[in-house]
């Protein structure tokens, strides 16, 4: 087995073992980190890879959550996994429609139109009370999963939910990881680098951006569905601006230059938020200061600070090595 394969296997083993390591409170935080991590990675497919800054990425996150909730409510006997698939499909359709209008724009105009779409969906979720229950939010009834061999995965049980979620998130991350290494994924990076030049090499700029927008929307919808299933509730706030900007912060906090940076950012964000909210009621202020600091001094994020080129790496790791050699 290659070294990378070994690391991945060990990492996955540790992740699957977490329910035996963490207490319930911390396991619930791990559950939150997983879906926000997936959300942040999907955002970064747009921002870090395609160079498209979306302020409305919450739109399909919410679409996924509402789809899961509505499917489970209205289609009796629908298995949970079927509802997740429905959420992913709804996210893909939503991404295709929103992307169709947005990806022909650039920069600020792209960001503003994505924001407009998410605010539009927010208004729909708020006002269409008959379907969405408006402000109160839609309560989500999550059925258990019957596995072969008479085993039942109880979704009210945090470890069971965590294992299901971990499996879904790992599959989504693997799909995204593989996608960016295909020729089409390479074309996505060309959109960020220089979409005009790509066009003159024969790449369809609109089509390529629409593909990655739709893919990112699909993953965001899965993250939103996991969010709804865990919270047992989906409300308009899942589509609102704070949700759309939180994911931007998570991605930047972790570092948009790497694949897993945004996932790390989501983890750090949730841990900091948890710690701060226990310490001070003014925690959003501190988070805001942190964001300003990151943008000013470390816009490569945590992975940028720790990475091979980063200042912390130079200070701690690179400097230590020569000492070890002479010792």
């Amino acid at each position, binding site marked *: 087995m290659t070294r990378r394969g070994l690391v991945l296997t060990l990492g996955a083993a540790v992740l699957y073992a977490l329910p035996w390591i963490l207490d319930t409170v911390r396991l619930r935080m791990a559950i939150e980190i997983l879906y926000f991590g997936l959300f942040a990675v999907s955002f970064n497919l747009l921002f870090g890879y395609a160079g498209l800054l979306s302020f409305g990425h919450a739109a399909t996150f919410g679409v996924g959550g509402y789809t899961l909730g509505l499917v489970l409510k209205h289609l009796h006997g629908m298995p949970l996994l079927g509802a997740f698939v429905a959420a992913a499909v709804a996210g893909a359709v939503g991404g295709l429609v929103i992307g169709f209008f947005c990806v022909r724009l650039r920069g600020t105009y792209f960001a503003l139109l994505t924001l407009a779409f998410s605010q539009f969906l927010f208004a729909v979720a708020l006002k269409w009370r008959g379907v969405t229950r408006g402000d109160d939010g839609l309560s989500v009834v999550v059925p258990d999963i019957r596995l072969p061999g008479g085993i039942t995965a109880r979704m009210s049980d945090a470890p069971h939910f965590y294992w299901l979620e971990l499996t879904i998130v790992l599959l989504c991350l693997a799909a995204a990881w593989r996608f960016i290494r295909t*020729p089409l994924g390479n074309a996505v990076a060309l959109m960020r680098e220089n979409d005009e030049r790509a066009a003159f090499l*024969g790449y369809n700029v609109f089509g390529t951006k629409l593909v990655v927008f739709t893919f990112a929307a699909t993953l965001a919808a899965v993250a939103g569905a996991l969010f709804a299933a865990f919270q047992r509730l989906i409300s308009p706030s899942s589509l609102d601006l704070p949700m759309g900007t939180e994911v931007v912060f998570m991605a930047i906090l972790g570092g948009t230059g790497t694949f897993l940076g945004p996932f790390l950012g989501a983890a750090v964000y949730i841990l900091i938020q948890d710690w701060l909210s226990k310490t001070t009621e003014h925690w959003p202020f501190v988070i805001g200061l942190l964001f300003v600091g990151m943008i000013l001094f470390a816009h490569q994020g945590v992975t940028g600070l720790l990475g091979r080129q980063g200042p912390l790496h130079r200070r701690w790791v690179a400097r230590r090595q020569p000492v070890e050699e002479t010792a």
Partner: protein
Amino acid sequence: MAAACLELENIHHDFGGLLVLQGVALTVREGERHAIIGPNGAGKSTLFNIITGRLAPRRGRVVYRGRDITGASPHRIARQRVGRSFQIINTFPRLTVFQNVRSAVVSRRDRRLDAWSLLDDDAEITHETEELLNLLGLAERRDTPASELSYGEQRELEIALTVAVQPELILLDEPTAGLNAEDSRKAVALIRRVTEGKTLVMVEHDMDVVFTLADRISVIHYGRVLASGVPDDIRRNEEVQRAYLGRKVRAVPR
């Protein structure tokens, strides 16, 4: 006489009312090296942008190998084996030289939509890319990000990207702009090599380069074709001398 490769018919264009092209008509034959010269602001780059789909002309037609491509989008024109380079360096700055050229190879092989195979593991694409890098003298800089190349090397990469899609019609916009004499000589040799058997249209200010490379020359002046012909005819044309070439060329013995 060889068949027409590219025909421009009565091309008009303006920017906010400012007339840039006023009825350009031009024929480029298969296999010839055709230079377009003219003073700054004559509309040369605009003409390139119209041929390659960056701009749609207000009036007129662009016909490539008998097909009307007027106003088609850049990627559709590029897929018909029309490659262009840019006056301003226009590469993928943070990708390495290898990744830059490979992206062009992927497009040439029509693998743009391949969402399954892993690009790094594709031996054929890697091999073709490396052959191109060797041919173009960029192999040593294989893993350098495009933005860290010297200016001359970036020009080479610009040409490499253009020819990596194996175009039948190659348009080069001032390929030697800003190069010193030696790099310019290298660029001319490179252009000669990679355009062998292809049709070339280039915009160029350096008259040495133009008269060395071109089989035919068209002079554009105030949005019109002032003259079009073999280099000797252009050199002798009095109107051209007055408008553009100036004293230096007038000294050439008739």
